[in-house]
């Protein structure tokens, strides 16, 4: 059965320039958008409506990405921009305000991603100056900064955290003491590499270097955990290729890539569904396609999202081969 993709809400953001990101919060009730017009807007989109809750100004350049923190910390949104800043916004008593501003990067900050809530309130930021910063909230309005310099020469384009999994959690029952998490995240950069970083003794170290792309890695996305010991990362690149990387052993040592597809144009963004079985791939000229892994391990395109029309064109075999 081809999937149904039907538009249930069209939000007219009134942004004055290109939109670069749109993210729903954890419960799917609010939508945050950011644009080249330097603003970040938050809408209430319950029941198909669109009410502008906040128009946040503070950036001095196009805003590239927004990321919602886990609701247990309150209503918190992070944004990163070409103006080299990362701003963390918080809703206090119904109004949204800047709660922290980080200016430690020398160039455009391209990506922000919150760590799994189990680790605390930690934000990873990737920048065109090649560095990745990790901002951790330590309480009382204070943030601690750890920086990985030269993570990717000439620029880091994307960061994505691995889901929180306590080693062996499926088998052992933690006996009430704080679990010993191994924190990991993936990053993609202008050196055509995907790198995996691991925290050891409070220091971040490069654990793996995944080479398969022949041009800039535009985005990486670590699939949500479904309880199995396998880890999956999707990466997409300027070279039009999307790879699915899987690692079967829990130690994270051997990653093997599988080519999802080679598109004819740059692929900008990859995003996993909550249950990790569908991958949304955004590329080229406003093309968004949905991909799913079949039981025999092959990835197939299950939908070609035509926006504005809200229709579904289930891609036929012929079309798929053409691509």
């Amino acid at each position, binding site marked *: *059965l081809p*999937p*149904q*993709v039907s538009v*249930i809400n*069209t*939000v*007219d*953001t*009134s942004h*004055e*320039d*290109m939109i*670069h*990101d*749109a*993210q*729903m919060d*954890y*419960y*799917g009730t609010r*939508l945050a*958008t950011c*644009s*080249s017009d330097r603003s970040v807007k938050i809408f209430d989109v319950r029941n198909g409506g669109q009410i502008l809750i906040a128009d946040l100004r503070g950036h001095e*350049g*196009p805003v*590239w990405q927004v990321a919602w923190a886990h609701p247990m910390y309150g209503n918190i949104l992070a944004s990163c921009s*070409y103006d080299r800043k990362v701003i963390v916004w918080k809703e206090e008593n119904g109004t949204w305000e800047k709660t922290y501003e980080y200016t430690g990067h*020398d*160039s*455009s900050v391209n990506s922000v991603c919150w760590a799994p809530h189990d680790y605390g309130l930690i934000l990873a930021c990737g920048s*065109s*100056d*090649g560095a990745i910063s990790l901002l951790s909230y330590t309480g009382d309005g204070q943030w601690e900064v750890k920086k990985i*310099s*030269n993570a990717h020469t*000439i*620029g880091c384009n994307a960061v994505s955290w691995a889901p929180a999994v306590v080693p062996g959690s499926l088998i052992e029952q933690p006996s009430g003491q704080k679990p010993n998490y191994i924190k990991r995240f993936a990053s993609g950069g*202008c*050196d055509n590499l995907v790198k995996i970083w691991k925290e050891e003794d409070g220091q971040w170290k490069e654990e793996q270097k995944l080479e398969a792309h022949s*041009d800039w890695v535009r985005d990486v996305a670590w699939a949500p955990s479904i309880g199995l010991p396998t880890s999956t990362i999707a990466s997409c690149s300027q070279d039009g290729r999307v790879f699915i990387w899987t690692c079967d052993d829990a130690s994270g040592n051997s990653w093997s890539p599988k080519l999802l597809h080679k598109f004819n144009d740059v692929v*900008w*963004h990859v*995003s*996993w*569904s*909550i249950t990790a079985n*569908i991958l*949304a*791939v*955004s590329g*080229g*000229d*406003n093309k*968004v396609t949905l991909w799913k892994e079949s039981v025999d391990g092959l990835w197939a395109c299950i*939908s070609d*999202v035509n*926006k*504005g029309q809200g229709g579904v064109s289930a891609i036929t075999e012929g079309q798929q081969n053409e691509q």
Partner: protein
Amino acid sequence: MKLKEIDRTAMQAWSPAQQHPIYLATGTSAQQLDATFSTSASLEIFELDLSDPSLDMKSCATFSSSHRYHKLIWGPHSMNSGERVSGVLIAGGENGNVILYDPAKVIAGDAEVVIAQKDKHTGPVRALDVNMFQTNLVASGANESEIYIWDLNNFATPMTPGVKTQPLEDISCIAWNRQVQHILASASPSGRTTVWDLRKNEPIIKVSDHNNRMHCSGLAWHPDVATQMVLASEDDRLPVIQMWDLRFASSPLRVLENHTRGILAIAWSMADSELLLSCGKDAKILCSNPNTGEVLYELPTNTQWCFDIQWCPRNPAVLSAASFDGRISIYSIMGGSTDGLRQKQVDQLSSSFGNLDPFGTGQSLPPLQLPQQTAPQSIVLPLKKPPKWIRRPVGASFSFGGKLVTFENAKSQQQPGIEQQQQQRHHVYVSQVVTEEEFLARSNQLQEAVQSEGFVSYCQRKIDMAQADFEKNVWAFLKVNFEEDSRVKYLELLGYRKDDVRKKVNMPGSCACVKCFTDGYVDGLITQTLLTGNFESAVDLCLHDNRMADAIILAIAGGQELLSRTQEKYFAKMQSKITRLITAVVTKNWKEIVQSCDLQNWREALAAVLTYARPDEFAALCDLLGNRLESEGDSLLQTQACLCYICAGNVEKLVACWTKARDGNSPFHRSCWLS
């Protein structure tokens, strides 16, 4: 920020966009001499390895050439067909020759790297360009207005674009149009630019700025607009870049006056048409927006003039600049800090030398003390506005409930030069992705149930809809979870109804039936009663089945009341000699014993009373026994009654009894007793 440096005095050419990894080819320049006044020439290929943070660029191959070059370009011809995996290097030599090299062979170190060469031109070939649509076509320009169009598939016979322009002039620049494949422009140092149409084989327009004298050093077509081009002037009196539109060719559309001295070279980025690089005799390398004239970026360079500047086709943020001090520098316009580089070099050195004096005296090196300098800011600010290649135009992300959030930025029809206020709608779409329609309906129901807290009815519906037994059971259990008295209901689901079991047990005739069946049945029944917590029935069953021990043990567990009842039943059932005594001991019913015991056993009865009777009933019991003995017993027993009366402390009766026993005895005894 500076990425790499090569110490060569050379003409440079980047590998085409399709080539991976990225190479930079350099050919010894015919125009410049280096400090050694060397006349040797070589063609060299370097690899751009950005994962290596050092400033050095890896040299992959060197080919010692017999020519020095005025121009070098790298085209992608035959890359797709696989014939030449790395394309073709086209070089313009000092003696009018155009030479074709195979870069793949150069890299491989072959001796035979020249594909072909032709000495068609009369003077040094200073201008070369590859047609981006038909990559087999190369235009070359030299002295005396000579322009040839070469077909790389048929290199022997080049064409001309038309009649030579008069007066005969050197051709300093040549460029194919970026939108229309048959249009070619050529420029001379005097500033006269001719635009040729190759289909008609004649010039279609001549552009020249009559008001000014300019020395044209650079020509570039607009990447997006077919009729626009820029011309750069090397003349210090007019150090400008002129933007021309051929539809209005009498004077420039716009003049960029950002340099203070003549411009030596320009390069227009194919990735973002708002980035035009220019380098000049003011030792500056600027990146400007040709559509507005604004300077977006100034590269931090040393004080040398750059004579050649190129964008890297594959990596749009990278550019190379060749300067007169014999160096080619590779930069990134994305900003960044040079501190990391410097530190890396220091680290590399110290790792080689360790802390020890390399000259073997065994002394450690003194710490490095850098003189305090007012060093220029090590942080390089990026372009004022973000280049096109980092502005993400499309994206999609999933949200809770199978929702997909997508956005698009509709491409605006740009007409640069004409101010247009376009109201663009920027929409975000929230879609519902459903891989199964049924699923959607179900999730909606679930959401409703969650919101309205109508869990019980939701589960009931599920039970009704369920097809497999297992599913039914699962939903039934879930439903019970939300109901009250859940544990009882769970039991019922499991098939153990308290009432049913009770009925079963109490069924008349069931006891008789019990005997008919095997023990298994009774076991089963007992199990059922126990699982429903029905101790009474279980005990009954055991008693009926003559499982006395089981019954009593269960009764103990069932509470004191049950125990007493069970004891009664037990005693009712059992008839053994000492049962009565046991009963009496347990039930503490001594009266019964006393009343009904065999009078021959009066001693035992009295003993029992003495041992067990409570103080308050002791006397009465003894009395009772005595009475019995008197009334029922024979004369012998009657006398024994006295003993009982003594125990009871009942003096009168005792006296009466004794008197009777002694019957007509002397009053003497009586009086003895009385006293």
